[in-house]
């Protein structure tokens, strides 16, 4: 996501920060590069012109030229402007009392409305709201069946206390262009149904339509008048090019949107729509869709995205993801164990599993400051983690509780059991011992030191990190053999002789 833009920006800042002082010519040259980078990233042509203009004005003011750290100053200016371009946004959904809060989804064909309706229902269910999903798309073949399937999946498989209802009138479905207007009645009756079943939120899935199709846009306005939705969201494909603003503008003019939901954010989108839509419509992006699964919906945070675009990482999102997977008690219990150096292989395995639930290693590491850049060409092998899990699962309970038991014979058995080699087993053990050692060190730090270590990571200067390794991950992967285990092996060998 946004990799190409991140690449360009880091290269640029590195160039600027390499100098003690910069001239006006340097700034202009840099701005020309920013302009190209943004255009290549599908940012709307008009937005790019204004954006670069503003940055140039700011940069040519005394701030940057007089600064001793021009690179850093530029990063700050661009960061602030990016945040400004996409924000501010209030990601909270407003609920009305008495319910139901009516949410209407609209957008072009294929932008992902129906899937997003399902994801939104899952999001609401998790937050304890009961939802009615209403199929108001009477045009696309099988759209009703698709929403019904999603409603069932959310009700059956997704966590949360909320209930999920489904409303549709399949007999109103007709071929394209023949059912125009019928959606109004369906929407009205869906609202009645939602009131009756006590839903907190009614989500209306409307048919995909072109913003220049007068008949269908008229229908959408009629639905709007009939049920007066509290929130109207435009669903937009994040991969859209220059046309993104045209459709967003047209929908906004006809419907007075409350926000935009960007889908397919897990693609290699360059970010054009994300950077252009707010500026042109004045309506913020509220949510982003980040995958095929029903829980792949996230609230949108402009500051975090700006940081990620500039290669500064996104520690906040990482922490939130972690909190979703690990409960506080579990975390505290583990912390205590770690402090005492009593962490076992079982704990290690549990940790590994919950980390993997958060997403791929690459996506997680990408959120660390300065790491994103290094990852571009790194082919992280998720299979390696599968092997690690297999190795641990091939150990007996005793072995998992005390790795010092692992002599060569046991290691050979584990290697056979897990379909790996003794080297692979040794590597896992080595890695575990390192984690053990590190966790003891961290736990022995005072609270203040730990805070320092953390905030230091967040404030690192992205420009300075271009050439370095992975800051904040000291010696990861180098692996020194623990002398303690070695000596125990020797003792055991001696005994067996």
């Amino acid at each position, binding site marked *: 996501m946004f990799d190409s833009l991140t690449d360009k920006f880091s290269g640029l800042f590195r160039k600027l920060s390499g100098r003690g002082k910069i001239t006006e010519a340097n700034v202009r040259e840099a701005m020309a590069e920013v302009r*190209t980078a943004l*255009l*290549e*990233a*599908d940012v709307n*042509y008009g937005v790019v012109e204004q954006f670069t203009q503003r940055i140039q004005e700011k940069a040519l003011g005394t701030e940057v030229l007089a600064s001793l750290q021009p690179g850093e100053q530029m990063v700050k200016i661009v960061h602030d402007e990016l945040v400004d371009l996409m924000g501010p946004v209030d990601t909270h959904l407003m609920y009305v009392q008495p319910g139901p809060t009516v949410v209407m989804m609209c957008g*072009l*064909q*294929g*932008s*992902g409305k129906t*899937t997003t309706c399902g994801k939104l229902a899952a999001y609401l269910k998790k937050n304890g709201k009961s939802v009615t999903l209403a199929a108001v798309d009477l*045009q*696309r*073949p*099988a*759209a009703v*069946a*698709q*929403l*019904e*399937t*999603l409603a069932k*999946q959310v009700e059956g498989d997704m966590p949360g206390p909320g209930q999920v209802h489904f409303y549709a009138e399949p007999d109103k479905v007709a*071929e*394209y*262009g023949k059912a125009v207007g019928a959606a109004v009645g369906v929407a009205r009756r869906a609202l009645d149904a939602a009131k009756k079943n006590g839903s907190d939120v009614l989500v209306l899935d409307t048919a995909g339509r*072109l*913003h*220049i*199709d007068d008949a269908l846009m008229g229908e959408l306005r009629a639905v709007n008048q009939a049920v007066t939705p509290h929130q109207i969201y435009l669903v937009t*494909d994040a*991969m*859209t*090019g*220059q*046309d*993104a603003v*045209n*459709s967003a503008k047209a929908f906004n003019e006809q419907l007075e949107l409350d926000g935009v939901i960007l*889908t*397919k954010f*897990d*693609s*290699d*989108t*360059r970010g*054009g*729509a994300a950077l252009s839509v707010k500026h042109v419509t004045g309506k913020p992006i509220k949510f982003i869709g980040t995958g*095929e699964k029903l829980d792949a919906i996230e609230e949108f945070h402009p500051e975090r995205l700006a940081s990620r675009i500039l290669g500064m990482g996104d520690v906040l999102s990482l922490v939130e993801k972690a909190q979703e997977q690990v409960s506080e008690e579990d975390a505290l219990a583990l912390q205590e164990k770690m402090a005492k150096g009593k962490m076992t292989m079982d704990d290690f395995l549990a940790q590994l599993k919950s980390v993997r639930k958060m997403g791929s290693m690459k996506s997680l590491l990408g959120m660390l400051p300065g790491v994103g850049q290094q990852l571009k060409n790194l082919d992280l092998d998720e299979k390696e983690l599968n092997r690690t899990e297999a190795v641990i699962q091939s150990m007996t309970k005793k072995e998992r509780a005390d790795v010092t038991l692992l002599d060569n014979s046991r290691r050979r058995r584990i290697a056979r059991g897990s379909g790996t080699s003794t080297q692979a087993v040794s590597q896992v053990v080595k890695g575990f011992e390192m984690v053990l050692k590190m966790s003891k060190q961290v736990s022995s730090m005072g609270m203040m030191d730990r805070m320092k270590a953390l905030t230091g990571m967040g404030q690192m200067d992205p420009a300075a990190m271009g050439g370095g390794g992975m800051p904040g991950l000291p010696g990861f992967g180098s692996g020194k053999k623990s002398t303690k285990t070695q000596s125990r092996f020797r003792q055991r060998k001696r005994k067996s002789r």
Partner: protein
Amino acid sequence: MALFKTAFNKLKQGLAKTRSGLVSGLRSVLGGRALSAELLSELEAKLIQADVGVATAAKLTQELSDAWKAGKVSQGEQALDYLKQRLAADWPDHDRRLRYAPDGGGPTVILIAGVNGAGKTTSIAKIAKSLRDENKSIVLAACDTFRAAAVEQLEIWSGRLGVEVVKGQQGGDPAAVAFDACEAAVARGADVLIVDTAGRLHTQDSLMRQLTKIKNVCAKKIPGAPHEVILVLDATVGQNAITQAKVFAEAIDVTGIFLAKLDGTARGGIVVAIRDQLGIPVKFIGVGETPDDVEPFEPGRFIEALFAE
């Protein structure tokens, strides 16, 4: 080309909302103006705004500028003609025709792929309709076993068009459905088998490998298959379509593009960059919701529309 007889007739009638309507009534930025440095930079902006991409736009503008300086073009209209010729040469006629299996070589297999929401299923309905109107017998393979109700969607189309569809279970192995569909198409002596696949982002390696598997299954069952591998691109897509095309081409040797949803305000200029960088031709354009809304790709008209006001 008989394939598009109906579409052409429709075109002549002049559709109010479709691209053809837009194009016939458009005024070009280039019209009635003498070529100048200023006009050239306007033209470059226009190309970028049509999603052609910065690099390709710069390249085309440079070529035009060279021709201008060499005295070959001086007026806006000439510049348009120059660009039309230049790009038409990139898109020769034979490149844009469908490739069929040799006579007696079994059904022609057309594999359809694309990212989520590009418009694959509707595009299949369009191709199926125009082939059916040529009296070809058609079998559809519903290999999108992933998305909810995707199979139903294709079934509804098959019902409306009166063509057969082979399907599997939701969540089943799409390659197995492709296998069954190939056997069914051969057994019934069908002329064309059109294989629908689940939308997938090109960033998902495992899903791309699944696509390769589907293609290999077709190749194993029917010699020379698939004869056409069509990537469906949404006309609104931005610069990442180049990577899309590249990755899909690596996985399944894409032979052509179906540029869908060209009836909106998007210009679909990215196909110029894709042709330029990857050599993949555009075979069809989609201009509406009904199965009749398909047209052959015409470079000249396409280029004109890029510069529409």
